[in-house]
């Protein structure tokens, strides 16, 4: 029961915060609501026994990505454009499309059949700690994607530098 209550709170908060993020006219406010949203999602992860994921959710998403967003929002000094209408003309149609999609997807979710149960029961993960279990997996079975991820980050760094450096023409 307590679990359900906790989930209820988180779910409610997450949905409200998401709505706030996408409807606030001031981007700074949006970013702030999103920060709060990410903390709630991290909480949900803890609830699902994913401590390490919760940690990176806070560190990477909230700590790095959102700060970057905030930085850009402030850098661009968008303040004078706040008075513009916040939705682009056709929000009712967008609402109907999205609502329709939500209905069909949730309807399909009703026919969910659980997949096979794996070896990482909650107890097994606890005994090893989540970080270690995940780390092991990343460095053995998922070594290859892990290396590709490093390349993705490298490209991001190079790309960001290329796009943002001062010299426009060669």
């Amino acid at each position, binding site marked *: 029961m307590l679990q359900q209550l906790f989930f209820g709170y988180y779910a409610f908060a997450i949905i409200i915060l998401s709505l706030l993020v996408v409807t606030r006219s001031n981007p700074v406010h949006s970013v702030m609501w999103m920060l709060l949203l990410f903390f709630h999602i991290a909480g949900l992860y803890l609830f699902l026994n994913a401590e390490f994921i919760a940690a990176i959710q806070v560190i990477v998403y909230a700590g790095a990505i959102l700060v970057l967003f905030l930085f850009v929002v402030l850098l661009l000094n968008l303040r004078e454009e706040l008075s513009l209408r916040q939705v682009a003309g056709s929000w009712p149609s967008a609402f109907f499309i999205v609502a329709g999609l939500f209905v*069909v*997807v949730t*309807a*399909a*979710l009703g*026919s*969910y*059949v*659980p*997949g*096979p*149960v*794996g070896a990482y029961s909650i107890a097994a993960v606890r005994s090893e700690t989540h970080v270690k279990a995940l780390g*092991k997996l990343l*460095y*053995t*079975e*998922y*070594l*290859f*994607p892990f290396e*590709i*991820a490093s*390349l*993705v980050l*490298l*490209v*991001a760094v*190079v*790309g960001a*530098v*290329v*796009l943002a450096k001062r010299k*426009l*023409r*060669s």
Partner: protein
Amino acid sequence: MPIAMPNLTPVMPELVMTCAAIIMLMAELVIKRKETLGFLSIVSAALISYLLLGSAGTTFGGMFVSDGYSSFFKLIFMANLVLTVLISPQYLHTMRINFGEYYALILFATLGMMLMASAADIIVLYLGLELMALSTYVLAGFIRYDMKSNEAAMKYLLLGAFASAILLYGTSLIYGLTGTTNLKDIAEYITNNGLAENPLLMVSMIFFAVAFSFKIAAAPFHMWAPDAYEGAPTPITAFMSVGPKAAGFAVLGRVFLVAFGSVRADWSLVLVPIAILTMAVGNILALSQTNIKRMLAYSSIAHAGYMLLGIIAGTPAGISSVLNYMFIYAFMNIGAFAIVIMLRTEGFAGEEIGDYAGLAKTHPAAAALMLVFMFSLTGIPPMAGFMGKFYLFMAAVNAGYTWLVIIAVLFSAISAYFYLRIVMLMYMKEPAGATLLNTSPGIGLALAITVSAVIFIGILPAKILGLAQIAVSSF
């Protein structure tokens, strides 16, 4: 827990590509003449093509598979890479964006495509796709002082991220249903547990179809393409219209035939309207374009529609004809873009279709080459484009999609109007003024390669098709 050294032979081409890209990044700091970097890229492409020969195998716990199918696609990526690098330097000079990172990013993008073609696991597929996409976003926005280039990069990135989210949602559903991300295991689980009828599996499959349709620019998920193609630097437009599209087809073929092999009837039902719409949108909208890059963008959409026919057929003949067509398309399309680049000079965009008026009078050789590419894109024999289309349509007919082929032929007849309109302008109209041609040895070489490939494959089509058939048989 002992860690076994994975077998690196199958990933050798990717390793070389990674090294080359990183070397390129560092060499950029010391090398003043950026063309040297282009030369190095071509050398590495040659080395990789050689390494592809002995790379067959599966490694990293079945996440990465190098087979004929992937090797054929990698060959297309290498051709794409070499041709793009050949047509780039002069454009970079003209636009004054001659930065060394350009080549490194092209190599990274190509690496991403190679990983996609070889991915046997959705995680690898996703990361490869993002590696390719992120590099391409940056390349599309490479002319930073140009509003259009920024806009192209922005639209491509945002819509690409949107499509990625959809792909990930599909992935999460399939993971939840089957507990794995390995394509073969997914297929096995679906057949063993009778999941084929599951609506959630259908939703997941549709989300995959949508995300891949986005990558190959199939309607109605194509809308980013004309804008991104128009705004991006022209060599990158050429690169984007071949590489990511080929990679998209590579994953589309592998995911749908391997992982979703048991729901083939369903996914072909999804792809048929997409294919029809794609051919319709591509061919009809290309008619009223005035910008040649935009026209070629719609043309590339239309060609994706034709190629979908081969996937829909789903037979070995169908898949091999897609491979064959993609190979041919790489040459004829980049060839056309090379001409577009030649028309660009300092202060003159040369991107309007009207700029081609009377080209045959001022520059007969360039006009003749353009004529060959336009004929090939239209599918007029004996150009390669005809053979490509012929095998595609034949495969679809043999798979029982005669009505679809009739539609395709009709749209392909419409396409003659906008391709031959360029030819008509070049040969029938008087030149408006003295057009300068911006030639260089690189472009000359690229044109020589593309035009001879287009004619050679058109006259001797059996070679490439035979290769494609062998490639598919191993899959």
